[in-house]
């Protein structure tokens, strides 16, 4: 490994390329084909730029680009290092597929305001890569806020009452997390350390007032935790599912939520560094919050009937795996064992979850476009109508549950081992329980799709039955406002009343062959490719570049 810092325009170019494409997309709003090709071109260019830095980064080179002093004592600066590369590579790679998929999806549904949609989408990717490459806390905050702004139009895209309320909630949550918590934490860190540069603050923070250092960590972790959908600030995410599915897929399973997780990774590994995280005792708190989130979210997912909502709760739960891994960094550093494993597991789950969850969302999207079915209770026997889609769905769901040979297993394994090594076996138990819960909420979908038919499906007591024997109305009032399964059932009713034709209609699902007649290849292609990616990550994790990058990060932290 050769350690070197090189000044290079590419990190900046990678951020700007989709910002430029925003202008082009808006300019060509009259010609949809040209407009979409800008998206695809920008995605390819962005990925190319980022991928071209991978070999250098693997050799230990860091590419830097600075726009000079932004505010007193803080530069507006970007840096492509191993950790940032994981996130940037992931987001830009998956954007390529999403760009195709989004074109197919938006056209398939004949959505309005497509120019605004694609422009905001490209802008979001700019912000996401900016977050990945930010060199200090203030720069990451800049992009973190811009990401909130850029994704707001996507959440509220529909313009319906539900979408507007979700958009309002989204803005309120993300600005609470960004403008209040992250900014407050950044100011505290700057006041204590005199710098916000990643990797340069830990020694100063260790010398500062421990209470203030803890407060700053709490503010930053909570602020990033809003986007990472940690409980109790998670409830924007299920509501944001009102957005078109490519948004739910790439942004609310990959770019936006992972920006929060990534922020926590920077915070734990580079702002405070593992030893200090352990000494201050904040790592274990983070791990406990994550453990609670991942269990509770899985349980709520059991009762969500709308597929996208169930996936959203699954996302909340899976993101907490990553946060759990990062939180365990503290105890592991203190115990002097398991540090490398928890870092590897936590970070590897970033790409692993991204591939799997994007597949799942894309499946939900194509089902919606082709059959207008949104509810799991209407999907029995859908394997006949959409065989390829549901196969991909099954593979990705298996990965989510941590079944070997799919991406999710490897990362979970590392966290599990690391937790035991760090003498935090309680968290290992939580992980195992959550695996069971994952199966419990995914298996019925797969089973129903392939092994049942619409007419003769078994009853689904968890989804349809009242919670704990109450009447549904009481369940709604008991369930609280954010995670209430009763509310889900209500919106289900209105959904049907509005006259959308969910389900197969009379006579059950048509049988469609395995040759891809089930939907547009613009959507089907990306689904199959990404599902294949998830398998590759699971079978040969070493071959995929992500694990190498993660090992670099882990070694850097250990050194």
């Amino acid at each position: 490994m050769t350690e070197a810092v090189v000044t290079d325009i590419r990190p900046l170019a990678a951020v700007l390329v989709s910002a430029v494409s925003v202008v082009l997309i808006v300019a060509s709003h009259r010609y949809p084909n040209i407009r979409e090709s800008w998206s695809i071109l920008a995605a390819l260019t962005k990925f190319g730029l980022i991928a071209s830095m991978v070999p250098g980064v693997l050799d230990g080179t860091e590419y830097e680009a600075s726009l000079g002093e932004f505010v007193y004592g803080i530069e507006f600066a970007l840096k492509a290092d191993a950790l940032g590369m994981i996130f940037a590579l992931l987001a830009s790679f998956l954007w390529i597929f999403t760009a195709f998929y989004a074109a197919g999806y938006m056209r398939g549904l004949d959505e309005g305001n497509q120019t605004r949609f694609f422009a905001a989408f490209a802008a979001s990717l700019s912000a996401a890569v900016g977050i990945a490459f930010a060199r200090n806390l203030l720069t990451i905050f800049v992009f973190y806020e811009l990401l909130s702004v850029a994704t707001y139009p996507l959440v509220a895209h529909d313009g319906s009452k539900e979408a507007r309320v979700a958009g309002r909630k989204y803005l309120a949550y993300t600005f609470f997390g960004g403008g209040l918590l992250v900014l407050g934490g950044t100011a505290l860190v700057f006041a204590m350390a005199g710098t916000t540069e990643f990797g340069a603050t830990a020694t100063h923070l260790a010398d500062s007032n421990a209470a203030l250092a803890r407060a700053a960590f709490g503010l930053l972790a909570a602020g990033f935790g809003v986007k990472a959908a940690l409980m109790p600030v998670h409830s924007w995410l299920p509501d944001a599912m009102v957005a078109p599915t490519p948004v739910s897929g790439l942004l609310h399973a990959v770019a936006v939520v992972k920006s929060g997780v990534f922020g926590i990774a920077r915070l734990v590994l580079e702002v405070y560094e593992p030893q200090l995280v352990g000494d201050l005792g904040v790592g274990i708190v983070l791990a406990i919050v994550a453990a609670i989130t991942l269990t509770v979210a899985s349980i709520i997912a059991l009762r969500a009937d709308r597929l996208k909502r169930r996936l959203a709760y699954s996302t909340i739960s899976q993101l907490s795996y990553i946060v759990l891994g990062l939180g365990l960094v503290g105890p592991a550093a203190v115990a002097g064992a398991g540090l490398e494993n928890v870092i590897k597991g936590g970070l590897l789950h970033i790409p692993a979850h991204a591939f799997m969850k994007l597949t799942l969302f894309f499946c939900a999207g194509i089902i919606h476009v082709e059959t207008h079915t949104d509810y799991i209770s209407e999907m029995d026997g859908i394997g006949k109508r959409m065989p390829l889609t549901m196969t991909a769905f099954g593979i990705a769901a298996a990965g989510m549950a941590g079944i070997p040979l799919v991406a999710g297993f490897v990362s979970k394994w590392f966290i599990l081992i690391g937790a035991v090594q760090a003498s935090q076996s309680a968290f290992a138990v939580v992980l195992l329980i959550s695996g069971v819960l994952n199966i419990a909420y995914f298996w019925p979908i797969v089973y129903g799709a392939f092994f049942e038919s619409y007419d003769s499906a078994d009853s689904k007591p968890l989804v349809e039955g009242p919670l704990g024997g109450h009447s549904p109305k009481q369940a709604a009032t008991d369930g609280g406002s954010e995670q209430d399964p009763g509310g889900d059932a209500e919106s289900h009713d209105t959904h049907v009343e509005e006259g959308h034709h969910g389900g197969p209609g009379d006579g059950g699902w048509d049988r469609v062959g395995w040759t891809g007649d089930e939907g547009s290849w613009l959507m089907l292609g990306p689904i199959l490719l990404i599902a294949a990616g998830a398998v590759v990550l699971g079978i040969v994790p070493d071959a995929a570049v992500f694990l190498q990058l993660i090992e670099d990060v882990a070694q850097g932290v250990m050194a």
Partner: protein
Amino acid sequence: MTEEALPALLIAVPILGATLPLALGLVRQRIGWWVATLVLAVEAAMASWIAYAVYIGGDRITHILGGETFGRKEVTVGSFDTEGFIVGIELVADALSGLLVALIAFVSLGVLAYARRAGPRQNTFYSAYLLLTGGLMGLVLTGDLFNMFVFLEIVGLMTYALVASDRSAASAVAALKYLVIGTTGASMYLVGVGYLFVRTGTLNMVDTSRVLAGEPEWLEVTGALYTEPLVVASFGFIAVGLATKTAIFPLHTWQPGAYSEAPDSVTVLISALVSTTSAYALARITWVVFTPEFFAVNVKATEAILVLAALSVVIGSVLAAMQQRVKRVFAYSSVAQFGLIAMAIGISVHPAATDTATRFAVYGVVIHLIGHAVIKGGLFATVGAIKKSTGARSIDEYAGLATERPVLSGTLAVLGFSLIGVPPMIGFVGKWYIGLAAVKAELWPLVFVIFASTLLTLLYVARLLEKLYFTPLSETTDTAQEPAVATDGRGSVSFGMVALAVTAAVLAVGLGFMGAELTDAIDPLVDAIQESSPEVHQ
């Protein structure tokens, strides 16, 4: 000719120019706009020159009105001669006033591009407009406390006139309210200055500051005067007077009416400049006349400022969120934003503030003053243009306008997010420094208010943007567009109106990246404040 004449010319040119529209109006109708443009173009050139001299050349330019007979006098103390007071009115262009001079010159010139189509078009309007510009220039350039009162009154009177210049009943009432409250504020200021004069015997800011510090040896003063009741009371009167003019809660009641009833061009001008210069006056007197040493022994004075400022931020934002008319929303928003600025003034002289805290607070004051002027002026320009072209005034009428007016809606979105403090725009930079100053001074309740103000601003901006972009066109909008408006007003937005709004949006983003240059420009001021020096030397 050297730069020394510039401060005087900057004030004299627009005031003398104000007579021209009236005089030439006898020959030609509607010549006022041309005269004003010419005069203010000259003004902008002079402002650029003086800004260049101050910031690049590093000069502190002073000019004493009245020529040779005035100026600093010698006094004989015992057997040796020493420096006495300055006799006459001194004008000062330094690191603080230079930025404001440039701001006033360019904003008043830019708003003309807007007023060309938006009106009013009478020659008298442009006379008042030029007088107002001259008054504002005087207010920021003067180095004399009583002279500041004179300019405060010129600005006040001209603002009253301009607010009522469309001759509607509502604007007349708003102007009258402003007149009563504004004049009371100015009188308070005068009382405060009177007290100071009684105690110190001078009106020049530098000399007053020195006497307060007990510096001049020839005065039989036994040390600093900071604890004397007369001096403390004078600060109270001055602060209350200027807070009234700045519209800090609870002295803000004139402002929403004045902003929302005034003709659109006038709203743009006064929202960008009038409260800004009053806040500048408060900052200047706090920093260089009373200096941090005064506040070190009068902690209560600082605390009072901080409490009122914090209330202003919270209540102003909440009131803004409760409004239906868009102009009133942004009017109340100014109450909140000037609350932030007043808060930063308070933090900068707070005894708990370290040198770095003071530095960041001063940065915050100046950057937020300028940033807010650009943002708020741009917002009112956008709102005015939208009203002119679609007839929409209330938030409900904004529903679905984004498809109809994409450029103006985009401008509104950019400026709105800048006001919230989304980085990297200028609204963020100011807020960052103010927040950082509070963190450094460890004033935790203020830290909370400052960072929470982001969410409070989001309350009303998001409401507006949601209507614009995501609410389908409602029935109310159609009925609101009366036929008269449709034939005459609708669609008649000029290029100048849109250009001013877009320029403001571009500046709001662009200035965000100029943070380092701005702070460099202010550094001499920071040094002066940290040393409690009455003169800002480069």
